[in-house]
């Protein structure tokens, strides 16, 4: 009988649907299988360690991916995409499946920005993570993920509108690098790729880890990390049997633990267990790249849902690694689009009747004022983030530039999801955006990039983990996800997370006895 490939959900290395309590042992337990966790697991397994990956979400494969928002948002998004900041003002989107947010991202690849890495060293004491230090890890990350530039034949009409306007204004834009191979351009990346062309971590690093002997436990929630002196001795929680719906006790003993649940779930787990927080920094310094959509209504038909969802961008980031924004062309399905339209009844319907004439983009702000993550009495992560200055001005600047780009491209009118329900048709209209009210609930904002909350650095009084991801307070606890970023990154983070995870793994493997406590 032919062996199942490592990306098959029924592969024997995938531990699922136990009939009763399950106890495992490993060298390293990695909690979370997104860009950080799956990469670390693959690297450590390739280095000869016995690794178990634990993922609270389901193992969703292309066989499950229907391209329908109704099916896929509950399956792939944490809380079906309904999670918001505490005040309800900003949608907080992140993944909830094997592969984490990479399963639902738009496959944009930016190398770690030099200016930001320099700022992390100068301002936060991060050592050994310069551009040169990270180069080997970056090269490997790009190789495994198949990073390449979007090709000319892959540019969709939505991106063409933005390109046309940017060129007329003399702006220098570019097409993204992405991690798709032989893309069919169906346009449903955010609902998971039904064709395995988007090189999500669940079809790259997860099977790579399994091929080197790692095991994977989907549908497994870890809620307790138990100490033995300065070491985590075991993690406990529950594992779901999908056939019966029952949850059974789950326990894993390991010599080292890596938490990689993302910048919301990771601090929540540490805070719930009172761990690694002698600095008081766990959960603080949350960065989210607050994102504000802008929609043009064109006379010609665009059908912006077609093709690669994000193709083209204009870079207006601060050159010193501080502030600024990216403008990124983006598409959306009818549910995500309709949910953002701040209108009801006939006005909502009349707006959505223009769906095939929409062109879409988003202002992605490199935020400079952080929020925080805490845990509610029920153990649910609470995201506190209020848009403040100078970030609100950054968003307004981005709205204005994007509106000008669209008007230059010939847009009939431009809309920003805002309770003022304004149309922008002239430069005089656009000038009014400079005073646009962005207080909570006024504008439709969301975040797809959460960072910070367990920042790295060499000073144990100011950071949670060291420059290799190890917790200052504990001998065998690592944090390996975007939580470790000391600042907002400014660009889509999957390559930086993957690179740092590779880098951390190399450091861990360099001193295996220390890692394993032997």
């Amino acid at each position, binding site marked *: 009988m032919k062996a199942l490939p490592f990306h098959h959900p029924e592969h024997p290395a995938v531990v699922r649907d136990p009939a009763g309590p399950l106890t495992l042992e490993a060298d390293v337990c990695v909690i979370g299988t997104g860009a950080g966790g799956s990469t670390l697991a693959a690297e450590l397994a390739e280095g000869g360690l016995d690794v178990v990956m634990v993922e609270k979400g389901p193992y969703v494969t*292309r066989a499950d991916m229907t391209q329908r928002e109704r099916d896929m948002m509950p399956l792939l998004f944490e809380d079906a995409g309904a999670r918001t900041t505490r005040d*309800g003002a900003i949608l907080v989107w992140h993944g909830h499946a094997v592969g984490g947010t990479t399963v639902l991202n738009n496959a944009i690849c930016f190398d770690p920005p030099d200016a930001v890495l320099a700022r992390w060293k100068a301002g936060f004491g991060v050592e050994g993570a310069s551009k040169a230090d990270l180069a080997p890890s970056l090269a490997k990350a790009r*190789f495994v993920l198949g990073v390449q530039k979007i090709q000319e034949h892959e540019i969709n009409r939505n991106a063409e509108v933005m390109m046309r306007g940017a060129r007329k204004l003399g702006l220098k834009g570019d097409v993204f690098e992405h991690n798709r191979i032989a893309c069919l351009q169906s346009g449903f990346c955010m609902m998971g790729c039904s*064709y395995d062309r988007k090189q999500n971590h669940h079809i790259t690093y997860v099977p790579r880890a399994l091929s080197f002997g790692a095991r994977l436990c989907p549908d497994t929630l870890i809620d307790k990390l138990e100490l033995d002196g300065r070491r985590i001795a075991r993690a406990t929680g529950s594992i779901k049997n999908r056939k019966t719906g029952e949850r059974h006790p789950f326990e894993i003993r390991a010599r080292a633990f890596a938490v990689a649940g993302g910048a919301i779930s990771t601090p929540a787990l540490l805070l719930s267990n009172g761990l690694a927080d002698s600095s008081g920094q766990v959960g603080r310094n949350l960065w989210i790249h607050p994102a504000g959509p802008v929609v043009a209504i064109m006379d010609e038909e665009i059908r912006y849902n077609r093709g690669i969802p994000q193709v083209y961008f204009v870079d207006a980031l601060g050159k010193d690694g501080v502030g600024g924004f990216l403008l990124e062309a983006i598409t959306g399905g009818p*549910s995500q*689009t309709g949910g953002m339209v701040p209108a009801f*009844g006939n006005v909502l319907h009349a707006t959505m*009747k223009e769906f095939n004439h929409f062109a879409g983009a988003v202002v992605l702000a490199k935020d400079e004022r952080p929020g925080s993550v805490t845990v509610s009495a*029920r153990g*649910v992560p609470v995201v506190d983030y209020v848009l403040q200055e100078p970030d609100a001005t950054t968003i307004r600047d981005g709205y204005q530039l994007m509106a000008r780009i669209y008007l230059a491209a010939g847009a009939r009118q431009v809309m920003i999801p805002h309770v003022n329900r304004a149309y922008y048709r002239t430069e005089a209209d656009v000038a009014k955006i400079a005073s646009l009210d962005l207080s909570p609930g006024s504008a439709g904002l969301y975040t797809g990039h959460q960072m910070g909350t367990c920042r790295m650095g060499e000073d144990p009084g100011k950071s949670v983990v060291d420059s290799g991801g190890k917790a200052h307070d504990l001998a065998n606890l690592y944090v390996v996800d975007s939580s470790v970023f000391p600042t907002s990154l400014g660009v889509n983070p999957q390559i930086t997370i993957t690179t740092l995870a590779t880098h951390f793994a190399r450091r861990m493997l360099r001193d295996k006895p220390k890692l394993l406590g032997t």
Partner: protein
Amino acid sequence: MGWSRRHSTPASSPLPARAAGDVIPRELVTRRSVLGGLAGGGAALLAGSLPLSGCSAGPAEAPDFPLRFFSPEEYRTVARLCDVIAPGGHGAPAAADLAVARQADALLATLNPDIQEQVRQLLSVFEHWPILALQWRPFSAQGAEGALSYLTAWQQSPVTTLRVGAAALGRLIAGIYYADSRSWEAIGYEGVWIGTRGAPDGAGKDWPDLVNNNVYRKFNG
């Protein structure tokens, strides 16, 4: 600069003119001094403490299917919201035809308990806010124009909690409505590719090697 010239939202006023069915004066919703102190959890507590049964829209009849999350009263509020947000017409189905309220019930039953509690508080305040403003008809008992006017007043309010609440309710109902394939034809959305648009059927019966064989290739960098 209203969002549809085909529908009458005057440029000078972000709020619709008060109609006969209105039950909440615009000036009440837009006066911070009246509502500011009630905007947060205090409003929910107050709503919970009022003798609302005497001012209600009448006993809520349970729908003819088991509710998974909503109480019958909450379901009635959401069903009314559906009528307001997606009433149908102009070639579009009504939210009621798509059982959007029932879909919302099923969706919310799966979310975390904190979100569920927030939704319950929001629905309670939203339903009874007219009574807090000394009007006598809760939201679900209002006529079509009054209900739309009331929801719009929340959206346009200077009180953060009301704006955020209106946005959340709009996202929930419109998001579910436009996720339903029966709403797509009216907006010209062509739908999914799988099995319909010439792209390979992704619901694979086989598991070929990944197109990117980097997964199993050794990296020599």
